[in-house]
C-alpha cells in the first residue's frame, strides 16, 4: 500500500524542500526529490547512497547504407529531431521524445534506436529514512524521463514527493503519480498569483490538497483570505524567521528547531484529517 503526497508551489522558493524534508522526518515517510533539474533535498538528509542507476532515453540512428533519404521520418517527427538534407538525414538527439514514430514509417528499415544517458536516479538512507532523487545531466533539456524513472521506483508506504517549481511538464508528471498534494506558498502578491495557478491545476487533475503558508506573518492575511473564499483547506502556517532562513542556508532542517516543531505537528495532523490516512 502506498500513499504519494506531492509538495508543490507554482512559485519557486516558497519552501517546498523546507516543508518536504521536515514533514518526511516527522512522519518517518520516504523522501523523493522530483526536482531533478535542481535537487536540494539530499543536502538536508545527507543520505548514504546505496544504489545508483543511469536514466537513458532512446534516439534514432540512421543506417546510411539502407537510407534512401526519402524524408518520411523527418516528415512524421513532431519534434524537429530529424531533418532531411541533401546528404542524408540529420538527427538532433536532444529534441527526440523517443516516440518511435520515425522507425514505424521507415520503409527501408534504416532506423534503429540506441540509448543515451540523460541523468541518474539515486537511492539511499538517512538513519531509517529512505531517500531517493533524480538528477538531470546539465545540458539536457528534458527532465520528464528522469522524473518518470524515479517515480517508477517508488517504495511502498508514505512517499513525500518534493516537486519542481512551476506548473508544467515536470510538475504534471509528478502529480500523475500523486494521491494528494500540499501547496506551499508565501504571503506575497507573487505567491498568491502562482498559488491560484497551482490550485487550478490540482482541481483539473482532481487531486485533493491543502495549503501551507510559509514565511507567514500575521500582518498579511491575503493567502488565508483567498483560501477561505475558495474553500481550500489550510494545513498550517510556518512563521517567517530570519533565524529559520539562516538555518536553512546551512542545510539544517526546520523541524530540528523547537521554534518550528509545533508547526509541523499541526500540519501533519491536519493533513491526516483531510487525506484520511492512519
Amino acid at each position: 500500500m502506498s500513499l504519494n503526497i506531492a509538495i508543490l508551489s507554482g512559485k519557486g522558493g516558497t519552501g517546498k524542500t523546507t516543508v518536504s524534508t521536515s514533514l518526511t522526518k516527522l512522519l518517518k515517510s520516504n523522501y523523493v526529490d522530483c526536482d531533478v533539474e535542481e535537487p536540494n533535498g539530499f543536502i538536508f538528509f545527507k543520505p548514504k547512497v546505496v544504489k545508483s542507476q543511469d536514466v537513458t532515453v532512446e534516439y534514432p540512428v540512421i543506417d546510411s547504407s539502407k537510407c534512401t533519404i526519402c524524408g518520411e521520418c523527418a516528415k512524421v517527427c513532431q519534434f524537429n529531431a530529424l531533418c532531411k538534407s541533401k546528404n542524408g538525414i540529420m538527427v538532433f538527439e536532444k529534441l527526440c521524445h523517443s516516440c518511435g514514430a520515425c522507425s514505424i514509417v521507415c520503409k527501408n528499415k534504416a532506423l534503429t534506436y540506441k540509448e543515451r544517458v540523460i541523468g541518474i536516479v539515486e537511492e539511499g538512507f538517512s538513519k531509517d529514512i529512505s531517500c531517493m532523487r533524480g538528477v538531470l545531466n546539465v545540458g539536457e533539456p528534458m527532465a520528464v524521463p528522469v522524473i518518470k524513472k524515479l517515480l517508477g521506483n517508488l517504495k511502498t508506504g508514505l512517499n513525500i514527493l518534493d516537486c519542481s517549481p512551476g506548473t508544467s511538464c515536470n510538475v504534471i508528471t509528478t502529480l500523475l503519480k500523486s494521491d494528494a498534494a500540499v501547496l506551499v506558498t508565501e504571503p506575497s502578491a507573487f505567491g498568491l498569483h502562482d498559488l491560484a495557478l497551482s490550485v487550478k491545476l490540482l482541481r483539473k487533475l482532481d487531486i485533493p490538497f491543502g495549503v501551507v503558508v510559509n514565511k507567514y506573518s500575521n500582518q498579511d492575511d491575503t493567502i488565508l483570505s483567498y483560501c477561505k473564499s475558495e474553500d481550500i483547506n489550510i494545513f498550517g502556517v510556518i512563521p517567517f524567521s530570519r533565524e529559520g532562513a539562516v538555518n536553512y542556508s546551512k542545510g539544517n532542517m526546520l523541524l530540528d528547531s523547537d521554534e518550528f516543531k509545533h508547526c509541523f505537528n499541526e500540519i501533519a495532523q491536519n493533513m491526516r484529517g483531510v487525506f484520511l490516512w492512519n
Partner: protein
Amino acid sequence: MELVVISGKGGTGKTTISAALSELAEDVVNADCDVDAPNLYLMYKGENIEQENFCGGKKAVIDYNLCIGCGMCEKHCKFDAIKHNKVIDYKCEGCGACAVVCYKNAIKLIDEKTAETYVTKTNYGDNKTKVISRAEMEVGTEGSGKLVTEVRKNAKKHIEGRSIIIDGSPGIGCAVMASLTGCDVCVIVTEPTISGFEDFLRVLAVCEHFGIKPLVCINKFDLNLSMTEEIEKFCNENNFIVAGKVPFDETVMKAINNLKPITYYKESPACTAIINMWLTIKKEINK
C-alpha cells in the same frame, strides 16, 4: 542587446532584479519568460496591444466512427496515453505514432492551444511607457520551452532599437535554455544558502554550455556571510564577476506587495545595491 536573468534555484529574486534593472535601464522591452509562473507582468499591468493563441504541441484525437478497437494505437504508444481506446490528454505528447499505425485512419493529430501570448503596454511616470511580452499557459499544458521562444520573438517585434530584459525561470531545462540562447548578457541571481550555491553551479554549467559568461548577483547576501564569502571565492577563482551583492531588505517584500519595482523605494538598501550593480553591469556590457 538581450540581457537574461536566471537563477537555478527558485525564489532567489530574479523578478525583483529584472524589474529593477528594467527601471534603471529605462528604455527597454521586458520579456516575462517564467511562463509557468509569470510574475513580472504583475508590476506592469496595462493595455494588451497584442494577443494571440499559441499552440505548443498536438494531441491525438480518435474518430470513433472509423475506429474498430483493434488496439494497435495503444500497443505503439510509448507514453501510456491510450487506454481502452481513449486518449489520456495529460499523457499524450502529440507524437503521432498512433496515427501512423492506425490503418483505418481513425486518429488525427490536432493542434493544441497551450497558451495565450500578450504584448502589454503600460504608461507610467512622465510620458514613459513599458512594453512587456508575456504568456499565460492553459492549465495542465506542456511545452514551456517553445513558449519561451515565442515570448522572446514577440518582444523582438517591438524593440525599435531598444534592448530586451528577460525574466527567466528557475531550473536548468528547456525553458531556461530557451531563455539563454542568443543572449548577450546573463545575470545569475543566487542566494547564500547551500541549496542556492549547488543550484548556481548547475545553471552556471548550462551557461558554459551556451558559451555565455554570466555576471553574478548574490541576493540577500547578509543572511549568511560565510556562504557569501564562499560564493565570492568561487567566482574569483573561476573568473566570474560578482556584479552585485544585495542585502536582505524587508522593503523588497513591501515593494512586491505593492506591485512596484524596488527602485520606487530610493531609501531602500536593496535599491542602492541594485543601482550600484547596474553600473557594474553597464561597465561590463561596454567592454
